[in-house]
């Protein structure tokens, strides 16, 4: 099952602050909704355990998260793969980062997920809105945390 979403966040902080935040795997992991714990592997990789509830599928999913920043500091790719309860989730998200004239930053994000197993089938009826909520909340949390720190 393939799902795609996109969205936009306006962050009341400069591009440098946003870029620094999303390059920190611990900070990115902390923005995942319902994150239970995470383990930073290196400057680009973090393993996170997340409480997932998609329809009747409820439990802990383990995800490996990899941050892939672009050299020109305008784009960040985010690869999230893992699963639980016999399910597999591969999520590829990307965000274009652009500074606005008022020194705020616009984050245009898009995500594409491939899901297999019970999460795709049992949870299929509610999966799209749930996954949209998860990824949307993640970027919203990024916005809130960066803005708060600014």
């Amino acid at each position: 099952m393939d799902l795609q979403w996109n969205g936009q966040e306006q962050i009341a902080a400069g591009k440098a602050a946003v870029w620094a935040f999303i390059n920190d795997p611990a900070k990115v992991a902390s923005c995942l909704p319902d994150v239970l714990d995470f383990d930073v592997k290196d400057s680009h990789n973090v393993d996170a355990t997340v409480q997932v509830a998609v329809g009747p599928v409820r439990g802990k999913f383990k995800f490996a998260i990899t941050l892939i920043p672009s050299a020109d500091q305008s784009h960040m790719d985010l690869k999230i793969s893992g699963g639980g309860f016999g399910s597999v989730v591969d999520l590829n998200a990307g965000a274009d980062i652009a500074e606005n004239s008022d020194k705020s930053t616009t984050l245009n994000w898009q995500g594409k997920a491939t899901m297999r197993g019970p999460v795709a089938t049992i949870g299929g009826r509610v999966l799209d809105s749930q996954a949209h909520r998860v990824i949307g909340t993640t970027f919203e949390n990024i916005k809130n945390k960066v803005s708060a720190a600014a």
Partner: protein
Amino acid sequence: MTTITDELPERHAMGKSMKRKEDPRLIRGKGNYLDDIVLPHMLYLALVHSPYPHARIKKIDKTAALASPGVKAVITGEDLVAAKLGWLPTFHSLDQQMVLAIGKALYQYQEVAGVIATSRKAAIDAVELVDVEYEPLDPVVSPFDAIKDKILVREDREAKTNHIYHWQVGDKDKTEAELAKSDVRIKERILSPRCHPAPLEPCGAIADMNRATGRLTVHLTSQAPHVHRTAFSIVTGIPEDKIHIISPDIGGGFGNKVPVYPGYVVATVASVILGVPVKWVETRTENLTCTGFARDYHMDVEIGATKAGKVTALKVSTVADHGAFDAVADPTKYPAGMFGIVTGSYVFPTAFAEVDAYFTNKAPGGVAYRCSFRVTEASYAIERAMNILAQKLGLDQVELRRMNFIQKDQFPYPSPLGFVYDSGDYEMTMDKALGIIGYKDLLREQAEKRARGEYMGIGISTFTEIVGAGPGKNFDILGIKMFDSAEIRIHPTGSGIVRAGTRHQGQGHETTWAQIVAEELGLDPQELLVEEGDTDTAPYGLGTYASRSTPVAGAALALASRKIRDKARKIAAHLLEASEDDVQWQDYKFSLKGVPGKSVTMKEVAFAAYTNPPPDTEPGLEATYYYDPPNLTFPYGTYIAVVEVDAETGAVQVRRFLAVDDCGTIINPMIVQGQVHGGLAEGFAIAFMQEIKYDDEGNNLNTDFTEYLIPTALETPNWETAHTVTPSPHHPIGAKGVGESPTVGSPQAFTNAVIDALSPLGITHIDVPLTREKVWRAIREAQAK
């Protein structure tokens, strides 16, 4: 001479609606189902499944699972390979099947490892801790993609192709020539979609290896316990005398409990390793995703006919999706089962059928879901195609059938595809149905509604089944001829015990077997205990599926009874102090010819068999019979559905449904009616609700009862039933079998009714299941044209 009647003769025990002897215990919760059985020191097995439909297995790390509380063992495919138990022969004998995935996972939810623990919860928790590293591969999901051989499902096979077999029957050249020159020709791709028997009780096993005796007892949800004993012996190498299969009460089978499944084997291996009983009971999701599915036949059906509507030729070319293994439950020499019944109830001067089967990255199966080996697919194809032809010709669906029926004086009828139909009077049965339903009035009503723009449909199905596998010369499973057996012991006081090689799962054998024996011997059916399912006590039989119990074991019961009666006649002559030639069996007792009033009952004979046998006769009164039928039986019927379709929503309301069945001699009308009701409910589900669908990535989308629907009393229509009786001339009591007729015969009646309703829009076919969405879309597309 075959007697055809719609009246039941008055008899001693047969033909009576005796209440089911098994019901008092079952409805009081005193049944003994597999999951009710708890043995001392029993462990529990849970299985790890592949989330990928196609993936290489790079590594399996058991460490964390083994460290989990209560876990006793973790078994992988490689472990089984080391024990030479990695592969399992399929019943079909043309393929083998991985027990647990070896090297590659070939379908989503394939069994990859087994965890054995002290409780079911501990085993399920530890399943999460088995760390399997996969390398995902592109799957092949559609059989039409499998044909291209771009992705190879089975690397283990010598032939590097997804093509499994080509099977054909009939005269291809003649059929194509006749089609080419026919006045009218129809061609339609008709799908009999992948569905699942989904018995309410899923499959399970308790393997119990007793190290002291060296004996393996397996409690098994088995429709064929003796075949499973032989299969277990072949797979494990354990001598057959050291294997004891007990099939306890079964909560529905419908073909799903015929194959051997990985859970059975892993539980057995675990019990052998650990020396304690190991229980495996699958979840609903495991049942729907792993164990035997049914159908998945994509059939291109062509009929040629004259302008007047006389059919001249039939050609059916099928692409069959068998999933990752060729694990169909068809007899060895019949890879496409009895698909040759596709000519149905009609006289086709020539016909040709072919099936090409392919591997895909989907669960294996192809079991006969309440159907005798691909008969449902065949029957659906011909009954649907006849209606498409009627539509093209502008003929009434009833009149087209009447014009093409095999006539009653043509029986035994050799079909162009090789079967010899035993008996039937299709016109009589159809006319009875038309009379009950009030066909002419319905046509009038339909015309009025059409004039008002309403969509009312009448659908007919005049199907012929083929059941009772089978003559041993043609049919076998694992090389074992498809006979069946009965053993009867009459006790001194005239009660008795009856055992058969079949295994009922709700069919009512405990009652009907007693009725057959009681009828033959003049005994009380309430005093005959029927036992099945224990391989230590029951005679060897091939089991219960494909409507074969009554045609085969039922015949064995009658003939074993007659053996007893032959011996009883000697004892009766001794008691009557007469010559055996002067003793006759009349009115269910032995009497002296020409001497009214001088008689002895079977009870008196039974007592004498143990207390006062004739000097030259061995004591006791028992017999065994192994029956190899000379032919199959051909039950048939006329089913009529009346529907209303809401063109705004696509909703279909089944207003009436009538089933007039002819299953030959009826043993217990109430049980037959119950069988028909149950089968119609399943046929209704197939027509409107059920399909196991996969998305393009190979995800199974119907993994529980929220996505794979079972009809409840809310949706299920009210069934009207009736019967005609055309005995099978070769069966000892004339019975033909009925368990599967309603599932075989009804889906096309529903579909024909819906298409009939929508025919003013020019719609000629919609594949089942006829969901609201599909019907709605078909209406919208037709209206847009």
